[in-house]
């Protein structure tokens, strides 16, 4: 998932949000049974369509509020890439009854925090506050859901536009290898496909965004019927229900939202690209289009990633980093979005080892796995860490709020984390072999990033097509 955030210095908090969470059963047992994978919650829908999820946990006197809007960069129109994320920034510039700055004062200024993040699929806003500040947090969120446009300030829009451009410079353009994900997206998806552009968007499109764009986007996507509100932590559920009704109940329902068509793709043939960057060490990236969170193959693809790289016993890590000592590091993983996904491989070579050789070595290891499948022991090791990861996720109110909203937004079930856990644990060696053969095919993008002027350091340099920011690649696609 490609994500941009309001404030990078506080991104650490998001790491917690990646883990789902469970509740210890009264018996206190901790065996990895599905009985332990539990978050107690209640969920209901207001007449205006807002889905509300409440989960009380009095361990720490804090509470997390998360508002999850089902809109992301895939809802953007060509020519307005980056808009969903720019809009996220505008949501922090004040609203009808909340002057600019008060949002930070009532969150960070009282010992809590706030941030927003935008992905291809959704935009999410959250506060963590001492539990006695829950009512003001709900007031803040309801005001920007209901009354953002009342105080829309063009000077603030322009300042946020400059800030987002600096975010692009800091996290992409001025970052060694920072443009890789953007190049790979362009190479994997046809230009009309909503996953072909990056969440951060292009500089030109960011410049083009107008006040009218902001208004239209808000009216269509920031309505309660397109939103999910989770409250997790130390609060009284009856009181929370009353406050939610009080602050969100009178916000009008919006028009039904049409979701963009974004089917998974298959590449008719391989693409081989080379990008020159201000780096000293070349890198090899390979991306295979796969599937998103609604396709159960994602679970076997996750396991495939941890069988290939990560611990030193993982196949590619062991072969390239330890036995051959040809790579300084290697990593492979499945990334699942709502509609599509990708499987990535990255190799950082050691000096005097060419990307061409490393690609061939990696391919040989992958081909062997495709032929033989993983061992039962590899499957067991891959699944053994799941329970601890779930339990640790339970220690974060915000992590739980994210998990519940993702389930509700993507699967129509806040408790979907339980299904995910069961499906992850149920992955077999045969499943992994099958998905490796189905997805890790020649229909892939191979991207070499090389130092300026060192095109010869690419993998198979003579077959590699040069790409630049101005001249992004595009695939030949078969549906």
């Amino acid at each position: 998932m490609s994500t941009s955030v309001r404030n990078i210095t506080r991104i650490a908090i998001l790491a917690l949000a990646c883990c789902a969470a469970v509740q210890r059963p009264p018996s206190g047992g901790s065996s990895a049974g599905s009985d332990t994978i539990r978050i107690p919650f209640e969920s209901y829908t207001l007449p205006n369509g807002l889905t509300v999820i409440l989960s009380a946990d009095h361990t720490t006197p804090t509470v997390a509020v998360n508002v999850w809007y089902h809109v992301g960069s895939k809802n953007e129109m060509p020519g307005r890439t980056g808009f969903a994320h720019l809009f996220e920034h505008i949501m922090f510039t004040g609203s009808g009854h909340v002057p600019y700055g008060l949002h930070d004062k009532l969150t960070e200024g009282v010992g809590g925090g706030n941030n927003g993040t935008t992905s291809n699929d959704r935009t999410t806003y959250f506060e963590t506050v001492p539990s006695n500040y829950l009512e003001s947090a709900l007031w803040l969120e309801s005001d920007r859901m209901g009354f953002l446009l009342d105080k829309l300030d063009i000077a603030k829009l322009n300042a946020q536009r400059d800030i987002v451009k600096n975010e692009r410079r800091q996290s992409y353009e001025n970052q060694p290898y920072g443009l890789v994900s953007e190049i790979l997206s362009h190479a994997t998806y046809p230009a009309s496909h909503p996953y072909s552009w990056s969440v951060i968007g292009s500089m030109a499109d960011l410049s083009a965004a107008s006040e009218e764009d902001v208004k239209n986007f808000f009216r269509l996507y920031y309505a309660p019927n397109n939103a999910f509100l989770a409250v997790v932590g130390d609060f009284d559920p009856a009181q929370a229900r009353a406050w939610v009704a009080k602050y969100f109940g009178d916000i009008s329902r919006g028009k039904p939202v049409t979701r963009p068509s974004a089917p998974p793709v298959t590449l008719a043939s391989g693409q081989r690209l080379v990008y020159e960057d201000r780096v000293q060490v070349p890198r090899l990236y390979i991306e295979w289009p796969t599937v998103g969170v609604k396709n159960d193959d994602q679970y076997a693809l996750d396991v495939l990633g941890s069988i290939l790289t990560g611990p030193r016993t993982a196949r590619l890590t062991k072969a390239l980093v330890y036995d051959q000592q040809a790579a300084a590091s290697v990593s492979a993983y499945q990334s699942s979005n709502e509609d599509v996904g990708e499987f990535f491989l990255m190799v950082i070579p050691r000096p005097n080892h060419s990307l061409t050789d490393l690609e061939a070595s990696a391919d040989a290891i992958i081909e062997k796995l495709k032929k033989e499948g993983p061992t039962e022991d590899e499957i067991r090791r891959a699944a053994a860490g799941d329970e601890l990861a779930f339990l640790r996720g339970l220690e974060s109110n915000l992590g739980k709020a994210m998990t519940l909203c993702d389930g509700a937004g993507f699967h129509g079930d806040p408790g979907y984390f339980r299904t995910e856990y069961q499906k992850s644990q149920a992955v077999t060696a045969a499943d992994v072999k099958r998905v490796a053969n189905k997805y890790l095919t020649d229909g892939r993008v191979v991207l070499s990033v090389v130092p300026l002027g060192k095109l010869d350091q690419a993998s198979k340099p003579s077959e590699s097509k040069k790409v630049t920011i101005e001249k992004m690649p595009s695939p030949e696609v078969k549906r």
Partner: protein
Amino acid sequence: MKRKSPNLKFVGVFLCALALLAFASFPLLSQQALDRTKIPPAGKAPVLRVPTWTRTTLANGAELMVSEKHDLPLVSFSLTILGGSYQFEPASRRGLAGITAAMMSEGTKTRDGDALSSAMQLLGTTVGVAIGTESGTMSFVSTSSKFAATLDILADMLLNPTFPGDALERLRAQRLVALTQAKAQPASIAERVFPRVLYGSAHPFGQNVTEESYKAITRDDVVAFHKTYFQPGRALIMVSGDVNPAAVKATIEKALANWSAGGSKPAFSYPELPERRATTIYLVDKPGAAQSTFAIGNPGPPRNTPDYYAIQVMNTMLGGLFQSRLNANIREEKGYSYGVSSSFAFGKGPGPFRAGGDVQSAKTDAALIEFMKELRGIEGSRPVSDEELTTAKDALIQRLPSTFASVSAINGAIATLWTQGLPDTYYQEYGRAVGAVTKDDVVRVAKKYIDLDHLNIVIVGDRASIEGPLKATGIAPIVVLDIEGNPTTSR
């Protein structure tokens, strides 16, 4: 239907009351009685619940503290060694502490590296070894049922490492690649050059890991470092979570039975700081950079300064929060950056004060002017408002509960008291100490610890486009450095 609600902000209390009465009998309109202009008041502040812990000493002299938390079947374990690379690493072997830490996962007398890794994977966890500049840890978080088995692996890594020579060569090669990559990254360059400028090459704070220091490290160095460093006489074992203090002590005594007594807490004596130099801009060229990375500062006081609380309040106002002066101005108002901040790196030694962030290249000069304006401001030219002072204090005091939100956070919070020599009552007294800070204190410590006449302004960016504008600001003379922090001879 009701997207625009009547704005009652300027309507008197009397009219509000009338409106309430008038709408009360019309259910459809009764929602309009909600006065959204009124900030919902905070409820009663929750009582601060600081974890408690037991203290005891193991047979070998290591201290043991245990804090129980039973809501989840989780345990956090850490073995902390007081002292780090600055105390135990020779200047010519910078990187030795980190390499030694990594080498401890490369095999024991009974398990090679792969066997260690497989065993940890099956337990679902990883034993981390990290040696920092003033302390080091071996640590893990496990489910309570896997605690004893994981502890056995940690003990094996601590007591029986074999330090295979080929693993050293592999780790050295990997780290050299990482170092080369870091030199292409503006933030990493600033990370190396800034301390070098502040402390000089004769002070451990100013000594960076280099190709030469990595290449000089031998297997004998690793063996010797491990033997000298990991001694129970300077160790704290901290356990938090779903454990019983008496039972866990027995488990630990058994697992670490072969860790024999020895070692003592190191003295944290540092050489004198280099003589202060008049405020200077140290420019590191990064041709074509889209942004300039700023690191502005000077050596700061150690953690045990009596001014600690006043400094925290002052820095929170200056650059510790999103709406702090620096970020509110340079990011939010001017749009020059995606974020700027400031901090004091508190420890046993004179860790730096640093203000900085990444700024759009074309705004480098303008941003420097604003940085200097805010530093002068906090030293008195822009008075501290009541609201600023209250917000800074509230932010610091009320974030305390989240310090104890997870077993690993509790572990860290309590271990910090031990490494920094703070009293057991520290967290209970924290609110009172922060609350006592005055506006005069804020200005006093800003003047005392941010030395505007001897400031080091490190900027990593595109020299060709930023040097002229920086010179034109007239703020300070410019010295051009290479990416290692050495003066260049060109121009």
